[in-house]
């Protein structure tokens, strides 16, 4: 077996071990369950509300949008936070000190994040879909759409997570990226259709992946009549692939450069420095 192949397989195993660890850790379990709890609360307040211009349950429209947002969050935030944290605590330096360790580390992270996304999707989808009416998740094509949108969403957002995770040397500063992301969620039609928003705001939302992931998930899980309330009265799969694909390509070009630059700078003394800083914060 070639060394790179061995490292890739070790990385896949690493991802599975770390995924298993997330199921036995209270903090991680809460992170899995929190979106579901939050959504059920939102759903409670949406009771009786309908998608404007239709008599379709607004809650049932929100569920797929939220799943779309969840893809973006998992891809971007989970990877970003763990890169920033594991750079601080020296995990990355260890990876650098072993042959092909960086490759194994990245493969491990991809497996871990994909696994966490699948788990969180199931955790949100199962209880919610039982409480909601009007979802069209019975056909195989619906599930197929759900899966490819999810995969494309990960490819578009994971490199962004890697880039941001490499740029912040202090994991506590990585939180600043959450502010603009929350802003984007607000204008991306996750909780309410954006057809009624000003055109310039719609324009901004359509540059970023969150809107398209919400749309993609709606196209998978809602009856086709609901496309009528979207921009252009269509699910716009072609445009979606275009925008997400563009983010993916841009990310995949930039991420290796940023990752390599970040990895090159790691050394025992840089980790020791960050450790000292972190210790000072604690005391």
């Amino acid at each position, binding site marked *: 077996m070639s060394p790179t192949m061995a490292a890739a397989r070790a990385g896949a195993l690493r991802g599975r071990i770390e995924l298993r660890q997330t199921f036995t850790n209270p903090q991680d379990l809460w992170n899995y369950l929190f979106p579901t709890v939050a959504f059920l609360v939102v759903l409670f307040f949406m009771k009786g509300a309908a998608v404007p211009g239709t008599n379709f349950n607004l809650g049932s429209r929100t569920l797929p949008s939220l799943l779309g947002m969840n893809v973006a969050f998992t891809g971007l935030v989970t990877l970003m936070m763990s890169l920033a944290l594991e750079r601080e605590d020296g995990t990355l330096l260890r990876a650098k000190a072993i042959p092909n360790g960086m490759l194994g580390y990245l493969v491990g992270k991809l497996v871990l994040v994909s696994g966490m996304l699948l788990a969180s999707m199931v955790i949100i989808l199962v209880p919610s879909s039982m409480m909601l009416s009007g979802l069209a998740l019975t056909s195989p094509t619906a599930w197929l759409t759900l899966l490819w949108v999810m995969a494309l969403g990960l490819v578009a957002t994971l490199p962004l997570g890697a880039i941001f995770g490499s740029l912040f040397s202090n994991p506590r500063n990585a939180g600043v990226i959450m502010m603009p992301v929350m802003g984007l969620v607000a204008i991306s039609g996750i909780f309410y259709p954006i057809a009624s928003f000003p055109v310039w705001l719609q324009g901004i939302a359509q540059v970023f992946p969150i809107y398209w992931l919400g749309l993609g998930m709606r196209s998978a899980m809602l009856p086709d009549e609901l496309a009528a309330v979207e921009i252009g009265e269509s699910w716009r799969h072609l445009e979606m692939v275009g925008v997400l694909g563009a983010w993916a390509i841009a990310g995949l070009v930039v991420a290796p450069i940023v990752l390599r630059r970040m990895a090159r700078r790691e050394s025992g003394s840089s*980790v020791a420095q960050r450790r000292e800083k972190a210790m000072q914060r604690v005391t």
Partner: protein
Amino acid sequence: MAVVDEADAPAREVRLAEEDVVLEVKDLRMRYGTTDVLTGVNFVARPGEVVALLGPNGAGKTTTIEILEGFRMRSAGEVAVLGVDPAHGDENWRARLGVVLQSWRDHGRWRVRELLEHLGLYYAPYSTDRIRRPWDVDELVEAVGLTPHAYKKINKLSGGQRRRLDVAIGIVGRPELLFLDEPTAGFDPEARREFHDLVHRLADEETTILLTTHDLDEAEKLADRILILVGGTIIADGSADALARRMSTEAEVKWTIDGQRFVHSTLDATGFVRELFGKYDTAIADLEVRRASLEDVYMAMVHEFESGRADAAIREFEEVTR
């Protein structure tokens, strides 16, 4: 006979340079901005040798080690680690090195044996007939004394146990060259003793070891050769004994006569004791001769260097003001 010697000599030298040197550093320099941290470091290490790098804080020990590990770019000079320039070392080269890093809280949720077994996977393709890689995980856990904790979560280990795990991670790939940066910081005396045994065992298996430490007693026990790095350059290179002889530091002689204690410092301990017996003979009891320890030698050398530098600075100042 002499003719044969002469013919052999140059060939031997070439062989030394190509095969028998694991580590070769020539005129290594490092500058951060306008500060020179390393101003010309020179040394070599041969297979199976344990070399200790000593020096005060800020002398450039960590910088030197990080350059050799390939984690830091140098400003100038020639460096060959296992025959490769670490600035251009590939994964094949990386697989032959071991680096013991100071851990903090990484891999906290992993279990000891699980992590060692996992990290070993990366080394398996680099196994050769001569060196079987990786180290068998149970043997490795045993070798670092972590068998009772093999299935413990890493964040539940004590500081000393974590440090042993760091060492285990450093040697899991059976390195030909091992870097140890302050390996026994935070060890209790028993753990320290066990660690020293492990280092001796590694050295017996032809692992070359470069270590830094602040514990001079440890350096004296472990190292075949000691390098003292002060002010960005190596000011001494030799065995602990050789360094002691070079510094001709004083030995301390203690004895008692009729229950009264005496202490005397002398350069010529043997001569002094001979004289002592000549004078008092059987009245002498509790005789003790303590040669200069590495610590004394180290202190003397660092002090000499620093006062030398101060003198040079004064001379320079006088020249400028003249």
